[in-house]
């Protein structure tokens, strides 16, 4: 009975992983077929090719910034909610979980409308209160920030739901005891509640970092990697090389796929290491 599931996973998860390793060792011939054995050259390219090195750095910047904004934002929303009365708290929780209803494409589409050059809704609204907004998608630095912001907003709903569930399950007696000892407000949050939320926070940091490493939809919808390659990420480069060009570079794209896989496995391994140390 386990065979259908196992068989499908072997064909569509394990076999592609093995096949990617093989493909990544071969370079393109003139017809675009991967037939030239090049060993690890294409892995070396990831760190020496200026475009790829830049994509790696951009991915790290977008992943880092969006994890910080989404997890930090969720924490900043959940902590004050803990002590609110039940009714307003329920309303606020529903409102704050709404971003979770958006797919990556839907959230990216909304931000494409908000950030659109010349007609973007955000800058129009800002103008009403006397602020001239930046050229969100046309300056390289703002574009990286805009993509990170869109990604963070998309991730916020998930982070908020996880932390909300964690906060409602906290041991109230510990918190009341700390409150009786005179801890209150920010101090209570910092030295009692946040440490108690640690398992959920680690889980979020890991899952959000992993999805940050895979960021693609926001880039493709908002900037297509531009301006001048400033927002091209690891997966966007993979997409361009394997599917976006007349002569696909399957080998080089496969090397990128393997680098991504290794990075994700590394982050997962670190998570298990940290959890084991606590246990």
């Amino acid at each position: 009975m386990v065979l259908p599931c196992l068989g499908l996973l072997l064909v569509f998860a394990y076999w592609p992983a093995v096949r990617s390793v093989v493909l990544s060792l071969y370079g393109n011939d003139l017809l675009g077929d991967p037939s030239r054995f090049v060993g690890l050259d294409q892995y070396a390219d990831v760190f020496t090719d200026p475009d790829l090195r830049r994509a790696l750095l951009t991915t790290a910047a977008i992943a880092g910034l969006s994890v910080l904004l989404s997890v930090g934002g969720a924490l900043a929303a959940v902590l004050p909610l803990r002590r609110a009365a039940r009714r307003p708290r329920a309303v606020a929780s529903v409102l704050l979980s709404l971003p979770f209803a958006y797919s990556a494409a839907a959230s990216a589409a909304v931000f494409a409308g908000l950030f659109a050059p010349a007609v973007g809704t955000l800058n129009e609204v800002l103008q009403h209160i006397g602020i001239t907004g930046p050229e969100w998608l046309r300056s390289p630095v703002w574009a990286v920030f805009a993509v990170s912001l869109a990604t963070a907003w998309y991730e916020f709903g998930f982070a908020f739901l996880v932390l909300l569930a964690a906060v409602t399950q906290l041991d109230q007696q510990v918190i009341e005891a700390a409150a009786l000892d005179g801890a209150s407000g920010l101090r209570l949050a910092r030295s009692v509640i946040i440490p108690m939320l640690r398992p959920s926070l680690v889980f979020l940091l890991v899952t959000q970092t992993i999805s940050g490493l895979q960021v693609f939809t926001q880039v493709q919808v908002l900037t297509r990697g531009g301006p001048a390659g400033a927002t091209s990420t690891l997966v966007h480069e993979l997409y361009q090389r394997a599917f976006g060009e007349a002569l696909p570079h399957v080998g080089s794209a496969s090397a990128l796929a393997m680098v991504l896989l290794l990075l994700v496995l590394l982050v997962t391994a670190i998570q298990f290491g940290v959890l084991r140390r606590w246990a």
Partner: protein
Amino acid sequence: MTRRRAASVLRWLWLGGVIVAVTFPVYVTVVTAVLPPTDVAAGRLVPVPDRLTLANVRAALGSAPLAQQYLVSVAVTALQSAAQLTTAALAAYALVFPRWRGRGAVFALVLATLAFPGESLVIPNFELVSGLGLRDTVLGIVIPYLAAGYAVFLLRQAFLALPRETWEAARMDGCGDLRALLYVVLPMARPQLVTAAMWCALSAWNGYFWPLLITDSPQRRTIQVGLAQLVVDQVTAPAVIYAGTLLVLLPTLLLVLFGQRFLVRGLASRVTT
């Protein structure tokens, strides 16, 4: 007392700021569906009762074959989540109830796939699915995702919490494995089955990267890919983009509003393991 009141006011001011920042994009998506395009273009986002119109929604439906793409997405979601639940229920049953050598290793193999980023597998899967002649078909979109490690994980956990005696009694009475799964195990695990179904459906509906790669013709793409194309076509008319987004969003919005209880259960079990 006044200090406490001041703290409470401060807390709600802070929360209010967070809520405004987080829900602004949601407000824009929803409200522009009934606003005249010129109001949206000018950044006037408060609806005036006597000027309501569905012009933006009509423009979105006219700009791309969204209705057809909706059907593709519905088919993909139904097929993919039904298949994932079936394969996962069978696998979880085999991993929990009968005792056999190697089931620990098999579970490890299934669980390990959770750590594979889908993007790193698309190139060989593209070769494979194209080779099968399934490019640009619904079957091609779902075929790599007929089994999902996460669904197995959720159902295995649900089955482990069930009383083993009930299953043993059913087996004693001569009940076959398939019958035991259908009539004894699954009815007892109904809430977790709903949770698993919701997560499967959500990820099927929201998929983007793979459907983008494996489909070519506009009317055979999923609604998510169609929406991304709408953004390209309507880059000068944000109001139309929002209206299209709202159409894509509706089913998942209902799920989050009314099924949150079930979704959160799926999250909790992931955090603690």
